């Protein structure tokens, strides 16, 4: 649906300005933003139009020849007390704008307009009148995209995941998604969001692991213009962007203690203050967090705040690694094959039974993402429209996933630490003792080498 096709319920704006260029540009701009727009070149014309038609919001230039904006405002208040009035002023005449506010104007904007501020102000005025909530407008156009994303899996383990998604999405509960990398945590988060009442508002994704600390604060909470060197314009944080919707905090274990403190406060108060800003901004959001790290061990090692852990660990969805649901491999392989063939404009191809067998026997440490990449590669290298086992990456078709130890010190250290951890059943304290290091050091090594505890804790 485009703006113009929406029905007559859209808010009606009246622009009152003596400059035709301002009138015209504003009218075009608001029209393309989905409003019903009319304009008047003088106070007299505005009064006539308001007497004849129905308007919701009037944007009135304070400085006009003849009857000025302030006088028009008081006349309008008599004939159309319901009308929301926003005054337009130049920087120099903010005084008269304040006068207008005292006389009952909703707010004022200064020329030239900051497009974002203007849009925000008018939207706020519309919501204030509760003419038509953004949600209702969005519903009409978003119903189509709000369908479930594709989570493929018929195994009991995945059916359980889908059940949990269905159960939690109707609530507003915080969700913690756990699983190895490549298991599709974002896809599950999206499924929760898309089945929730918040689905008409965005799900904003933050990859906490990909950002440096100083940047993460700005990314999450935003900053004001001039908050630090180089900030020539304000920056909205991800929480602000998630208003009404969901914020997906991926790799939540990667954030520093300092940001953990601030994050906890935001999760508790549902209010953010931009860096360098004074005004707290209330935000309505739902949190979905995800991690492939052992948060309990991190709490134990004092790398993750316990209070934050309990705040996010409300409802957990554990995504099994692919090797624990190998029954889903043929299904997934066929699914990716279909998608890639479509995307690459290839005729639909098939996977030989032999290749399926190879795929099913491999342990997929990179999980669904690795399988997806292997299928993509097979289609690229394969000459025919059939995926043979020899088109698959060597590490897959080799059948074994023995860890090939390298010769570098780091490789040896990694293997040694891994073996010790497995030997100690992933008890961090015992493993640290056996290795002769403290838990913090061990924890850092685990992070550095990306070692992962199997979800069942069986080592």
């Amino acid at each position, binding site marked *: *649906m*485009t*703006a*113009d096709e*929406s029905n007559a319920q859209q808010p009606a704006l009246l622009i009152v300005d003596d400059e035709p*260029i*301002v009138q015209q*540009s*504003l009218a075009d*701009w608001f029209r*393309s*933003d*989905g409003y019903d727009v009319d304009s008047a070149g003088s106070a007299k014309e505005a009064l006539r139009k308001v007497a004849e038609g129905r308007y919701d919001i009037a944007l009135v230039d304070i400085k006009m020849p003849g009857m000025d904006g302030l006088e028009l405002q008081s006349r309008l208040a008599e004939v159309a007390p319901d009308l929301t009035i926003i005054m337009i002023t130049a920087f120099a005449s903010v005084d008269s704008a304040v006068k207008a506010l005292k006389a009952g104007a909703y707010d004022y904007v200064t*020329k*030239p*307009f*900051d*497009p*974002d501020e*203007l*849009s*925000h102000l008018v939207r706020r005025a519309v919501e204030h009148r509760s003419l038509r909530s953004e949600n209702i*407008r*969005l519903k*009409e*156009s*978003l119903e*189509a*995209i709000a369908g479930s994303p*594709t989570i493929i899996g018929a195994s009991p383990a995945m059916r359980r995941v889908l059940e949990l998604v269905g159960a939690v999405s109707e609530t507003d509960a915080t969700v913690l998604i756990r699983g190895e990398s490549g298991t599709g945590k974002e896809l599950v988060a999206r499924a929760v969001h898309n089945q929730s009442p918040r689905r008409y*508002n*965005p799900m*904003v994704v933050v990859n906490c692991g990909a950002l*440096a600390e100083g*940047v993460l604060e*700005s990314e999450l909470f935003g*900053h004001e213009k001039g*908050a*630090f*060197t*180089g*900030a*020539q*314009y*304000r*920056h*909205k944080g991800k929480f*602000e*962007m998630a208003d009404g919707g969901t914020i997906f905090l991926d790799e939540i274990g990667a954030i520093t203690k300092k940001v953990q403190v601030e994050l906890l406060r935001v999760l508790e108060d549902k209010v953010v203050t931009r860096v360098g800003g004074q005004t707290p901004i209330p935000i309505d959001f739902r949190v979905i967090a995800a991690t492939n790290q052992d948060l309990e061990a991190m709490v134990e090692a004092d790398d993750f705040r316990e209070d934050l852990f309990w705040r996010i660990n409300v409802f957990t969805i554990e995504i099994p690694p692919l090797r624990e649901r190998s029954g889903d491999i043929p299904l997934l392989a066929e699914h990716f094959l279909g*998608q890639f063939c479509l*995307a*690459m*404009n290839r005729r639909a191809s098939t996977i030989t039974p032999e290749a399926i067998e190879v795929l099913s026997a491999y342990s997929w440490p990179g999980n669904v993402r690795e399988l997806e990449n292997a299928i993509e590669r097979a289609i690229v290298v394969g000459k025919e429209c059939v995926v043979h086992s020899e088109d698959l990456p060597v590490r897959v078709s080799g059948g074994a996933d023995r860890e090939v130890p390298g010769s570098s010190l780091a490789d040896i250290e990694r293997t040694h630490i891994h073996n010790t951890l497995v030997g100690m059943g992933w008890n961090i304290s015992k493993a640290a003792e056996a290795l002769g290091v403290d838990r913090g050091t061990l924890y850092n090594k685990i992070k550095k080498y990306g070692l992962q505890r199997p979800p069942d804790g069986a080592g």
Partner: protein
Amino acid sequence: MEPASGTASIEAVHLLTVGPFPRLLAEELTARLSREVGVPCRLLDEAAEIKPQILPERAQVHADDLLRQLEALPIEKGTKLVGVTLLDIAIPIFTFVFGRSRLGGPATLVSLARLKPEFYGMPADPAVTVRRGVAEILHEVGHNLELKHCRNYSCLMYFSHDVETVDLRGLSYCSSCAPLLPAGFLATGRRRF
């Protein structure tokens, strides 16, 4: 093949840089754009006749004047011309715009000045700048191809007034807008999932 809608049709997209613009960045932008669209994208040599005008009392280029200059260039039929610039652009009533175009027009203008993370004090990231640039180009060319704004926040044709919304939108036209585009405009080999 018949175009899917109206009279709009497109055979090529030509990029033209306006003002100082690193060649490498222009090439990257062209390459990234051609991954998204199904028609050839070509980077043109600078046009000497284009002369950006400064808005009175503001250190910004008059976007609508520049768009008119671009539209006045000889543009081949079936081609959409995209002027890209690093200059900060605005129109008299607004403090800035990301881009300008007319519905069904032959040319668009997009500025990367406020799409760069550096503008917001964030670390420079050319990949982010290029992705946002491509998103804005696709939005403005969408107008050239007679698409209006869309209510779907994840659609390229959503009206965005800030760079954060540009990021939220992503790089796809929604399922309502995409079918209105001329046949062949969208790349078929694009990964869409």
